[in-house]
C-alpha cells in the first residue's frame, strides 16, 4: 500500500520567511538560515482544585504563550534581511514572519509575529561566521 505523501516524513522543504511590514505584506525567504527552533506555543497551567476534587488535583489550560524562537544563520556582510532584524532588536519592534512548509503539497503556512529581543554575532576562527536572532512569539500562530 502506498502511503500518501502527507502521511510520511520528509526532509527539508521548510523555509523561514521575513515580512517587510507592507500592506499587503510581502515575505522573503531568509536563505542563510541553518537553524530555527522554538516555533510553537504552550498553555499555562491553572490549578482548579476544589474541596470537591476528591483528594486529587485538577487543572485546566490557561492562556497560550508563544515560545521564544531562535534563528541561526550564516553571517553575510551587508545582507538587508540581517540588517533589518538587527534594527528590529535595537528599535524594540515586532516583525511578522512565515514558516513556509512546501516539502509536500499542499503548501502549509505558520504565520507569526515576534517581539524581537536579541541579536548576537558569533565570530568563528576556523569556520563560517554565524549570527543568531531571538524573538518571543506575540499573539496567536495562524496556521493555514
Amino acid at each position: 500500500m502506498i502511503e500518501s505523501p502527507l502521511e510520511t516524513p520528509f526532509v527539508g522543504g521548510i523555509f523561514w520567511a521575513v515580512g517587510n511590514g507592507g500592506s499587503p505584506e510581502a515575505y522573503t525567504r531568509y536563505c542563510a538560515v541553518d537553524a530555527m527552533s522554538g516555533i510553537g506555543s504552550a498553555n499555562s497551567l491553572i490549578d482548579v482544585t476544589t474541596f470537591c476534587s476528591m483528594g486529587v488535583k485538577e487543572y485546566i489550560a490557561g492562556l497560550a504563550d508563544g515560545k521564544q524562537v531562535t534563528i541561526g544563520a550564516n553571517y553575510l556582510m551587508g545582507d538587508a534581511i540581517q540588517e533589518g532584524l538587527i534594527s528590529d532588536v535595537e528599535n524594540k519592534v515586532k516583525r511578522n514572519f512565515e514558516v513556509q512548509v512546501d516539502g509536500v503539497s499542499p503548501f502549509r503556512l505558520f504565520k507569526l509575529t515576534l517581539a524581537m529581543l536579541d541579536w548576537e554575532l558569533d565570530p568563528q576562527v576556523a569556520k563560517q561566521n554565524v549570527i543568531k536572532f531571538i524573538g518571543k512569539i506575540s499573539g496567536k500562530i495562524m496556521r493555514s
Partner: protein
Amino acid sequence: MRVETDFRSWLLAEPTISAIVGGRIFGLVREPQAALPAINIQRIVTRRQELFCGVDPLVSADLQVDSYAIDGDGAWTCAEALRTVLKNFSGPMGTTQVDKVFLINEFPLVDPDPGIIRVVQTYNFWYVED
C-alpha cells in the same frame, strides 16, 4: 574547476615550490618512477553546509599534501615551503575563490617505497563553489 586542480596549478606557478620540485606535483597518485622531491595532492574530506534553502556555496575541503624526498630533511624542506606559501592564504587560485586555508595536521612517515620519506600535511580549504 576543482579546488585540488586549481591548487596544483597554483603551486606549479609558485617559484619557491617549483624551485624545489620542478613540475613534479601530482594529483591523487604519484608517478612511481618520478624523481624526488615531489608532491602529491589528494582531497580526503569535503563538507557542505545544508541550509533551509539549499546548499551553501562556501565549502570546506581537506586536502592531503604529501612531500616526498629521499631523506627527512628534503621532505621537511618541501613541506615547510608549502606551509609558508599557504600561511594566511586568502584569494583566488585560478578559477577558485579561496576564503581561507588552515594547516590542520602535519607528520612524517616512512613511505612504503624503500628509502623514501614522506611528510604528510592536511590543509583545510574554505572555498566558494558554483
